[in-house]
């Protein structure tokens, strides 16, 4: 990190009213009055050209009697995070919105509105996270609300709103293409999709509240691993890194190597899984079966290294619980050779099926400037021309010892997203080979783990679906606040643009092309309560109407 660049940024921020600035590792913590927030955010997002990572509310009344809101920005080029903190009094928590400057902040604000009762002035507010019949005024993330409060469950779902003129096709909540409960209502004319109404998030399980109440520090690793069943290890690694950064615990080298090895094994299995499901959605079941046959050795390899096929459970704060000895390393290299050879031939066959080529080209296009404005992450960003990869920009674990290239395509259609993922499988195999033969000797867990209170840290990892952000404020025995932002959280709003003008038959493959992991994202829920149809005008020139009044 070049310190003079940080000095320059700090002086700029100070000039714009930022106070009590502190720097730790690669993060600048800044706090600002709520009235100067918008100008500071405008400067960071536009002049510094930072991506919006996330924003999270926190009930700090027991500590200093205020409600706090943390906006987190990231500068990939310089590998820098900027956390902007604003306060609001405890009786009426009001914050200025930044949605018109940063469209991607819409959902995070609504989550804070729902879970903590924050009011955002200057925008339309709607219920986001909790089911429609959740009692008003009950904000689960506030400290006085117990984590196991249970209002009476209702079994009468609300009726699907049907605008009269356009036929509405419900895809979901239980649709064969999307093996997760999310609900897209596509308004179609003939078979062309005209508009999308999205209401999903049946998977909101109150993980963040659980992390602050019943769970202790070491138990949260197993909770973080179950945020998502496909890329769970990414979440638990990200959580461990956040706490280790906050408490300044230095993790032994060998543990970092083991973490990166298991991360890459998980990336291979996740991408192979997606390629199989994409082939199934296009009717090519033989491709699905053979891709998953090739994926099976990767699952057995994961079980060999960690003890379980999917939720590996080897991560602890300060290191890992299992070691990799010589016989496992040899077997791992064998498995990798088999997977690489077989997937090479299968990928060529897949791309030579006439139907697959015809249906994937030029469908579900996400132009580059929309991708930048919504700050989409991972393969969706790399397929639309944005060159972003946390493993290279902010290297963590053992990624600074390996070299690999990041596949970037510019078409931004479904075929580009497929090609990005296929290339990334071979990249991961290359990384794994380098990691396996550079792994150093040494302990696999740090000795004394003491976690002081009141420390803040932001940590990022590159999940198979994109950049993953964990923000932790440490407390006594358990985190005081633990905010998780999963990659699909950023990619789902981009679906509105991708699904416009797409054939109905391609809607499932387009929805699946961002590889949505709703159990990662499902701490929020988007609903349009008055059923009126809105229109997303993202590509409008700057000015009044660029605020996305819908989603």
């Amino acid at each position, binding site marked *: 990190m070049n310190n003079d660049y940080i000095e320059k940024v700090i002086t700029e921020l100070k000039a714009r009213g930022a106070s009590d600035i502190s720097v730790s590792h690669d993060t600048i913590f800044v706090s600002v009055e709520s009235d100067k927030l918008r100008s500071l955010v405008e400067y960071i997002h536009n002049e510094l050209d930072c991506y919006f990572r996330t924003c999270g509310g926190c009930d700090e009344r027991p500590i200093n009697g205020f409600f706090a809101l943390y906006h987190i920005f990231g500068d990939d080029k310089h590998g820098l995070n900027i956390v902007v903190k604003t306060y609001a009094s405890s009786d009426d928590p009001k914050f200025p919105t930044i949605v018109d400057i940063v469209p991607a902040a819409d959902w995070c604000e609504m989550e804070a509105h729902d879970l903590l009762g924050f009011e955002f002035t200057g925008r339309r507010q709607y219920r986001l996270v*909790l*089911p429609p019949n*959740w009692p008003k005024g009950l904000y*689960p993330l506030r400290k006085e*609300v117990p*984590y*196991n*409060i*249970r209002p009476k*469950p*209702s*079994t*009468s*779902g609300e009726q699907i709103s049907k605008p009269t003129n356009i036929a509405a096709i419900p895809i979901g*909540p*239980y*649709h*064969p293409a999307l*093996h*997760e*409960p999310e609900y897209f209502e596509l308004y179609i004319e003939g078979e062309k999709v005209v508009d999308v109404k999205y209401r999903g*998030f*049946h*998977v*909101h*399980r*109150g*993980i963040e*509240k*659980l992390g602050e109440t*019943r769970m202790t520090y070491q138990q949260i690793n*197993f*909770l973080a691993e*179950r*945020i*998502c*069943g*496909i890329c*769970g290890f990414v979440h638990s690694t990200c959580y461990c890194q956040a706490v280790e950064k906050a408490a300044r615990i230095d993790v032994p080298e060998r543990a970092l190597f083991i973490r990166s090895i298991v991360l890459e094994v998980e990336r291979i299995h996740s991408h192979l*899984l997606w390629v199989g*499901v994409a082939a199934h959605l296009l009717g090519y079941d033989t491709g*699905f*079966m*053979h891709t*998953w*046959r090739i994926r*099976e050795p990767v*699952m057995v390899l994961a079980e060999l290294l960690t003890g379980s*096929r*999917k*939720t590996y459970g080897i991560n602890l704060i300060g290191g890992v619980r299992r070691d990799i000895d010589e016989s496992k390393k040899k077997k791992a290299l064998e498995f990798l050779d088999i997977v690489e050879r077989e997937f090479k031939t299968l990928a060529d066959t897949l791309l030579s099926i006439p139907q697959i080529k015809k249906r994937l080209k030029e469908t579900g296009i996400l132009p580059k400037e929309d991708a930048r404005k919504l700050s989409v992450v991972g393969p969706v960003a790399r397929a639309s021309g944005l060159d972003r990869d946390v493993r290279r920009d902010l290297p963590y674990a053992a990624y600074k010892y390996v070299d690999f290239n990041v596949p970037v395509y510019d078409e931004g259609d479904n075929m580009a997203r497929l090609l990005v993922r296929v290339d990334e499988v071979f990249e991961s195999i290359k990384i794994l080979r380098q990691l396996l033969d550079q792994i150093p000797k040494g302990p696999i867990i740090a000795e004394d783990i003491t976690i002081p209170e009141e420390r803040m840290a932001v940590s990022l990892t590159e999940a198979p679906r994109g950049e993953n952000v964990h923000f932790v404020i440490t407390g006594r025995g358990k985190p005081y606040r633990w905010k998780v932002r999963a990659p699909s959280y950023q990619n789902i709003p981009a679906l509105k643009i991708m699904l416009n003008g797409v054939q109905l038959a391609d809607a499932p493959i387009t929805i699946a092309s961002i590889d949505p*992991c*709703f*159990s990662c994202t*499902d701490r929020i*829920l988007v609903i349009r309560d008055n059923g009126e149809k809105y229109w997303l005008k993202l590509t409008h020139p700057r000015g009044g109407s660029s605020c996305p009044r819908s989603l």
Partner: protein
Amino acid sequence: MSLEYLKKSIWVFHLNTGSCNACDIEVLDVLTPYFDAERFGVKLVVSPRHADAILLTGPITYESLPKVVKAIESAPRPRIIIALGSCACGGGIWYDTYSTIGGVPELLKILKEHNIEVDGVYYVPGCPVRPESIIYAIGLFKGLVEKKVKRKVKKAGF
């Protein structure tokens, strides 16, 4: 109603009620070449109308409860419920949070309130459930294998 005919051909409707989708991926894995549940006549179907077995994964969150009840109601009798994974069998790691009802045992109480009958419930623990344990559950339902777990109460001795 008799489950006799169900033993030869089981059509499964998969409902993800808030699971972290590790179990759902293992459900798909059961159909792939290494495990191949189709040799027992198991087929994944897409509408509860065609279903014999409703496969529930996940701790049934408040948001998905109405849809789960409606899906179970619209499956023709005889129908069985398969609770897959720790989340469905006992609520999982978030069994007591504010937004989940705690798995299939609680769901059965709600179903009894709405007097929706079900002809059988099978619990398959695991986190995530191994594909082999799903096939073991299918074998148990078809009578190919016996049950291995039993309630044990042991007295602490010396």
